[in-house]
């Protein structure tokens, strides 16, 4: 290769490596700010500040959803399969909200360690299935559960 081109290539390579390293370090330093939400474990460890608006996310625990019949108040727990966090919310939940679904809630932690949410978003996973397949899956699950 022509020495001039080789020199240019090396210069560009060095600049790119240095820039990537710089951006990587910045990202690493800011990773807590880049994370969209705290997991229940992080909140249990006390990493999340109190009385400041934060987001918390996790899977809605089966059987934990309590709805008030008179108001739109709803309370439920989310889990990351290590710790649980109780969330209280007043308002309309997204269509995809259900037990076992991932959600992200925005709100403030109170002294009890409960998140008083002002917004609840549903988090979707990357799995897609036609409804017939889900039914078939559930039937086979039930069939295998029966002795």
């Amino acid at each position, binding site marked *: 290769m022509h020495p001039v081109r080789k020199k240019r290539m090396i210069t560009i390579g060095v600049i790119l490596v240095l820039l990537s390293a710089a951006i990587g370090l910045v990202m690493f330093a800011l990773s807590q700010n880049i*994370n969209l939400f705290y997991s229940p474990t992080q909140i249990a460890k006390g990493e999340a500040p109190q009385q400041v608006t934060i987001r918390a996310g996790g899977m809605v625990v089966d059987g934990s959803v309590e709805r008030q019949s008179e108001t739109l108040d709803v309370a439920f727990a989310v889990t990351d399969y290590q710790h649980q966090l109780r969330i209280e919310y007043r308002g309309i939940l997204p269509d995809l909200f259900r037990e076992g679904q991932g959600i992200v809630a925005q709100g403030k932690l109170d002294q009890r360690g409960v998140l008083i949410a002002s917004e609840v978003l549903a988090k979707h996973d990357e799995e897609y299935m036609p409804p017939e397949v889900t039914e078939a899956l559930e039937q086979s699950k039930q069939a295998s559960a029966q002795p």
Partner: protein
Amino acid sequence: MNWTWFHKLGSPKWFYQWASKWAGKLVWIGLLLLLIGVVWGLAFAPADYQQGNSFRIIYIHVPVAMLAQSCYLAMGIAGFVALVWQMKLAPVFIKSVAVVGAVMAFIALLSGAIWGKPTWGTWWVWDARLTSVLVLFLLYMGVIAIQNALDDQVFADKAVAVVSLVGVINLPIIKYSVEWWNTLHQPATFRLTEKPSMPMEMWLPLLFSALGLYLFSAGIAMWRMQTEVLKRERKANWVKQEVMSDGI
């Protein structure tokens, strides 16, 4: 290894004639595949068990998002070639592809927002994936703006090559944002290396529309490059002959 094809790319004349043969074919085949994929996906593929029909936006969102990233990767490589080998066609390529990529990034952001409202409950959230794609869109805008703002063509080409090359750092951030950080955006559904996380009758139309969009965009980019080559080589003899032979 035979590098003749690479050196041939250095000749605008050779490229122009090669592109005249292929660009039209690519556009039409791409359009056909895209049409099959989109109609199949929007009308015939089964609905999702959770999201119902709103999941169908995947047949537009995923292909354009892939294109938006691929275009930038290609621009980055062209930027490297432009800086090291100073090949004439590399800046032409960057200038032509930037507009295609910008449109793709914009449609990806727009279709994602439209899908996000019913599914997540919000149009926009500043999570790592959404923000990094917005940065990608702004990088495209930057490339287009620099190319148009600088009068000195040589200087503009060089500046654009640098921006294209450096912006490539954003691509792994987009790709791995959903794994490195907690995001609202779900991980990738459409993977070529692993088993896709959707059944065949949902995955096949997606494959068709993605392939179609790649071919279509390649054809459009080649047309744009041809125009740019004609503009830049307007003083060359072969361009005069080319224009004369069209009877103008």
